[in-house]
């Protein structure tokens, strides 16, 4: 039975595990990254690749704004295939109430040093002429960006490997003991630190974690360069409660650097079945066409689903497992795994004593769900 050692075992080669490997190996930590599948094979490849500041709660704002800044610092090092595009986000206000709310949001963000530009209806139409006429305005967040996550994750792991870490793919983890991880084939890896970046699969390895799969549908088109310039997202969430309904659909359109259009999105608590649901796909497309009528004739080449790792309070779980202080959890990012991966990695590094905490780590600790987790 083969037995090896490392300074840290990272379970999961998605964007969060890869970012942890990148940051930890920069501190001289030799990581062993393990994944049952391929690099970025889970939510990392299913998601849109939107890197954005979200301010629906203080901790979310702290983590996402930290992370957006870290992504910008990384942009010049990323390979071309990571398709980093600083296209920004344009939040769309459909009516006057939403525009008012957008104005307040812009002020809040400005007070915290985040660039946000309020557009009236005319400026919006000028910025994105394919939006339907009559929209009230928008909020431009020029520092948001778009990244192709699977290639970014692969690059992060390449950097980690160059710094002495190793990546072991196709190996399923079956047990996490103190300072030891056991694989399906009998192999085991010992390390003082274990990091679980297993996204939606976290409850299988660490039972009791309140992480639920939240299904999403996306579609991508053939190439239509120039149809829109920014990532366009409807702002209606400001006037509607950000809740946990079983099903919701919102307009979200991303121009890929290839000229393709990525069209989203849906959120469902609907079990684990990855099948594309025709009804939901139809709703996603209809909503997109409602905002951008020119999408009607656009050829859809592919549609797929993915599962976000959702928590009850919409915040990720980052920090020690309540019963195993050297098992660090890094999961529950819902749809913000790509955005928050870099900030998460910094928090993980701070829990290992490698650097000071960049933001207050308390809101992300697993112990906030104490009742749900029994080591």
């Amino acid at each position, binding site marked *: 039975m083969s037995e090896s050692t490392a300074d840290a075992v990272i379970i999961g080669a998605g964007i969060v595990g890869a970012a942890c490997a990148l940051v930890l190996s920069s501190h001289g930590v030799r990581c062993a990254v393990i994944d049952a599948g*391929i*690099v*970025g*094979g889970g939510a990392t*490849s299913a998601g*849109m690749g*939107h890197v*954005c500041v*979200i301010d629906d709660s203080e901790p979310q704002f702290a983590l996402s704004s930290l992370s957006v800044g870290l992504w910008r610092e990384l942009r010049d090092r990323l390979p071309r*295939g990571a398709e980093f595009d600083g296209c920004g986000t344009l939040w769309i206000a459909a009516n006057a109430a939403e525009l008012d709310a957008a104005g307040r949001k812009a002020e809040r963000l400005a007070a915290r040093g985040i660039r946000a530009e309020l557009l009236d209806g005319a400026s919006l139409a000028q910025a994105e002429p394919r939006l339907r006429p009559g929209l009230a305005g928008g909020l431009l967040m020029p520092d948001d960006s778009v990244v192709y996550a*699977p*290639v970014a994750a*692969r690059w992060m792991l390449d950097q980690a490997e160059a710094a002495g870490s190793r990546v072991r*793919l196709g190996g399923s983890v079956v047990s996490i003991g103190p300072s030891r991880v056991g694989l399906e084939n009998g192999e085991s890896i010992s390390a003082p630190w274990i990091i679980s970046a297993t996204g939606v699969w976290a409850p299988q390895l660490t039972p009791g974690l309140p992480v639920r799969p939240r299904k999403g549908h996306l*579609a991508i*088109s*053939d190439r239509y360069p120039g149809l829109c310039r920014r990532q366009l*997202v*409807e*702002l*209606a*969430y400001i006037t*509607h409660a*950000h*809740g946990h*309904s079983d*099903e*919701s*659909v*919102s307009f*979200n359109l991303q121009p890929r650097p290839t000229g393709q259009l990525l*069209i*989203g999105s849906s*959120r469902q608590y609907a079990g684990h079945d990855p099948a*594309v649901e*025709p*009804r939901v*796909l*139809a*709703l996603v*497309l*209809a*909503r*997109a*066409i*409602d905002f951008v009528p020119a*999408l*009607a*004739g*656009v*050829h*859809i*080449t*592919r*549609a*797929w689903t993915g599962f976000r790792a959702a928590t009850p309070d919409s915040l990720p779980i980052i920090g020690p497992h309540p019963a195993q202080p050297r098992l660090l959890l890094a999961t529950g990012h*819902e*749809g*913000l795994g790509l*955005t928050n991966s870099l900030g998460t990695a910094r928090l993980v590094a701070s829990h290992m004593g490698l650097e000071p905490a960049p933001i207050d780590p308390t809101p992300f600790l697993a112990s906030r769900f104490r009742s749900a987790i029994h080591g």
Partner: protein
Amino acid sequence: MEHRHAKVVVIGAGPAGLAAAARAGEHGCSVLVIDDNPDSGGQIWRGDHGLRARTWRARCAAAGVAFVHETAVIGESAPGTLVAGRPRGPMRVRFERLVLATGARELFLPFPGWTLPGVFGAGGLQALVKSGFDVRGMVIPVVGSGPLLPVIAAYLRGRGARVPIVAEQASAASMRGLATGLLGAPAKLIQAIRLRAALWRTPYRTGYWPVQATGEDRVREVKVSNGQRTLTIACDALACGFGLVPNIHVASTLGCHITEGRVDVSDLMRTSREGVFAAGEALGVGGVECALVEGEIAGLAAAGAEDEAADLRGRRARARAFAGALSDAFRLREELRRVVDDATVVCRCEDVRWGRVRARSCWRDAKLQTRCGMGPCQGRVCGPAMAFLRGWRVGDSRPPVYPAGAKDLAVALGSAGASAAPDERGLRERTNMEPER
């Protein structure tokens, strides 16, 4: 949006589809055939007015079989309701029984220069000539593999092209094995002799395969090699195909089991899905005889005439055995895996070159890291090529089956599909409008 309904719906109007439709119709079922092409016959009988094609078309007509052409099935909006795309908008088709007769497409293997304009699929070039492409006076080598190469060469000659060579990659030794096998199939033998007569001035070289096509803006020259000798042939176009690949995307989208790139069926052509049958090349390439008998079995079984269907099983076994002998004889040689160089484009939609894709660990890894197979053909060309070159399992088909307009999809897949557009107010009521993360 147009709605249609039939007891038995058949997808594909090639030999298998026509046979299935005729048999089910003759047993009193209402039958609707959906086909992507302007006319029935599939690729093999495209524009063919030969006896068998005429016979099966006539049997369909006599049995009252209905056809919708230029219509591509793109998905299923609810169990038992297909969604299809047409030039004039989408349609929905309800079925009680479904027969998948989706046929096959050509296998293309990459070699340097294969992306030049003027390098056509062998069957592809034939289809283009049948739809009006005038090849009179052109010099067109026919290269690749399979029993269709001489057929296509003869066709091109008949349309005025000069075919300087038919280069079959299979060795003479494996072809001799086939010649013995032919004795058991007189119809095939007669066909082979006829072809030989048509080809008497065209050298048919076994054991030669294409290694490079060159030309500035289009192909002007092709090199074929037997490993020792390389022949350089000047040309105006090149016809090139390496056999056929089953079309399984519809079956896969409908949730039918697929094994090694073929639809799984019982001996009565039942797929893993209740009420869904499959026949012909989608079960593994077998040729016209095989497609016809499997179509008959599927049509009869779909109509509930299972005893009659069961009687045809012997005929099917013989046809499949012959197909097996063919595929052994034309087995692709190792050397074809070494013709590509690092600069050779493998995925033509996304211009992914061999040098980038060869080091990936599996098909999905290649898709995610290089975009191979992520373009509009959805891996229909590069997928089978990579399966051959790297031994990868290639098979995650995702809806829609074919690229389709966003509005057509929204209307046809949606629950509000009966109206011209989804009801906007209803849509808003059902949504909670959260931001995407």
